[in-house]
């Protein structure tokens, strides 16, 4: 209880730009503004072909709505601050890194390898140390799923160093 109070007090004393309310609102408004600017580069339909409104009008209206509502959310948060969230633990960041690894490996090396690396990485850092279970999540289970998808759905997975060997066999 004391810890929560301390954290709340600490949050109150932070400058506004360090508070979650500001950071979240800023990110939403910033991205929405960039998207809004990009809508001005959409092609314009000549009046003779145009039915109703221009293709850019609807997304523009949505983005303006999102920005306006976010401003309201921020304004309301100055009166009633958000609940302070706990700091994210190390396994969260490691899982996030494993997603990046997955994207990198699936793009450059192999889709299957990417799944195996992510599975073994996540399982290990989440606390699994037994060799059989690491083998199960990283090799045995993905192979079963691959074969299942391939035979039942007739799916062909993207080429890569391991997948190519499988398809050649």
């Amino acid at each position, binding site marked *: 209880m004391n810890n929560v109070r301390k954290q709340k007090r600490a949050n109150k004393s932070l400058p506004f730009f360090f508070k979650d309310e500001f950071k*979240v609102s800023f990110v*939403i408004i910033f991205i929405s503004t960039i*998207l809004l600017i*990009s809508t001005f580069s*959409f*092609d314009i*339909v000549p009046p003779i072909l*145009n*039915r*109703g*409104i221009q*293709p*850019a009008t*609807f*997304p523009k209206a*949505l983005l303006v*709505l*999102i920005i306006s*509502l*976010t401003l309201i*959310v921020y304004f*309301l948060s100055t009166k009633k601050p*958000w*609940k302070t*969230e706990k700091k*994210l*633990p190390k*396994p*969260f960041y*490691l*899982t*996030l890194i494993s*997603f990046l690894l*997955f*994207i990198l490996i*699936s*793009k450059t090396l192999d*889709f299957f390898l990417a*799944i195996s690396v*992510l*599975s073994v990485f*996540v*399982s290990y850092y*989440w*606390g*699994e140390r037994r060799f059989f*279970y690491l083998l*199960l*999540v*990283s090799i045995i*289970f*993905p192979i079963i*799923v691959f074969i299942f*998808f391939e035979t*039942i*759905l007739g*799916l*062909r*997975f*993207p080429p890569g160093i391991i997948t190519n060997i499988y398809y050649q066999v």
Partner: protein
Amino acid sequence: MENLLLMMAPLFSSKLLLVLFFGTLFGLILGVLPGLGPTTGGALILPFTMTLDPLSAIVLLTSIYCAGTYGGAITAILINTPGTPAAAATCLDGYPLAQKGEAGRALGMATVSSTVGGIFSVIILVFFAPLLAKLAYEFGQPEYFALAIFGLTMLASIGEGSPIKNLIAGAFGILISTIGKDFMTSIDRFTYGINELSEGIGFIPVVVGLFAISEMLTQSTLLDQIFKRVALKAVKLPSLKDYKLTWKTILRSSGIGSFIGVLPAEGGTVASLIGYSEAKRFSKKPEEFGKGSIEGIAGAEAANNAATGGAMVPTLALGIPGSATTAVILTGLIIHGVRPGPDLFREQPEFLYGIFGAMLIANVLFFIFGFFGAKIFARITLVPNKILWPMIFTVSVCGTYSLSQSILDVWIMIFFGVLGFFMRRYGFSVVPVIIGLILGELVEGTLRQSLVIFDGNWLMFFTRPIALTFFILSFIALAFPLLRSKKNKK
């Protein structure tokens, strides 16, 4: 009579019975596992439905929906963690009752009230969906636009969390639907030269990302959490005394759940909370709520399962999903070339009544599975997260890839997973994004076509009585949370 026979069709088809059997079993497993649920499960199984005929595919999805909603109660009662958000209210009394050594009684009541709620809602579905579909014949483009807006405002208003944040999430969902070629003029929007984006962003990568991958990230923050499972000998059917005490609550909650389900909102989650609070309000012993009241369990469980049939009403009659899971079912219908709406009732009654019949059977099946197998299903929660979630990731990746055979879809799934995690962390519900995405094309299309009909005059919307009614209802839906918070302050 003819319709009743059509409803019985699944009973006479061994293939449909097998699909129902596996769908119910799979739904229960999904419901039991915290973090997973019928929405994620439905989205993951969607690629496999391509190997089935349309009726079997939708029967599979609906049986997952019914059984998954009930399955959440098993974990809620035995480990005090709702398997699905819809079972959150069940924890309040289910776990305290289980701690008193009455886990079997709590599960028995949850099973019976879920089944009654589910069957009640299917009856509502059978009577209401055709009526709503007939009414929908009166709807033109402006009415559909107003209806979609009403759906989104209802979602924002009675959905989980802040209404304004829900509106932002809904608008974001609609914005995602605008990515790709404009369907009226074929002009690229937000594609930034990426050819794969011209076709737009698929529904499945977004759903799997927002539900499964974001949940994986959430689980990574909860690794030190220890579940204490209450021992269960066997599920007990409620006693005559329990029936006498709860039958009114079960019926009331079934009605509430069906009604909430029909509204385009978060279906079971909201229904169970209202069902629970109404059970407390009408109870002769409200002081027992939160300490193991059997009425509390009945109120929450009857309501959340009743919402399943209710949520199918607008999905089938209007093509507007009543919950996140029905949005997945709607996608399943579209993928299989079935267009929900009034024409479906006229042209394919055997298809529709087959679904109704299958939902009825699924409710009976999960009663049997739940009654005899709750102890086994509860053991599934013992699968450690460090093994379970990498496996779910593998299935998510392959399932997402399989629909369009596009690696970009997999990356989009991961992007939405990370986004979904942060959205939930800062109080933005992900359900409006899903509903917004699926309604996006309808909202934009009907708006633009209406403006063509009205020759660009926006005010003409208010000259159409049905559209005007929906706009007034939308306004009320938006004003309701404001009035409620002012009343609470007083």
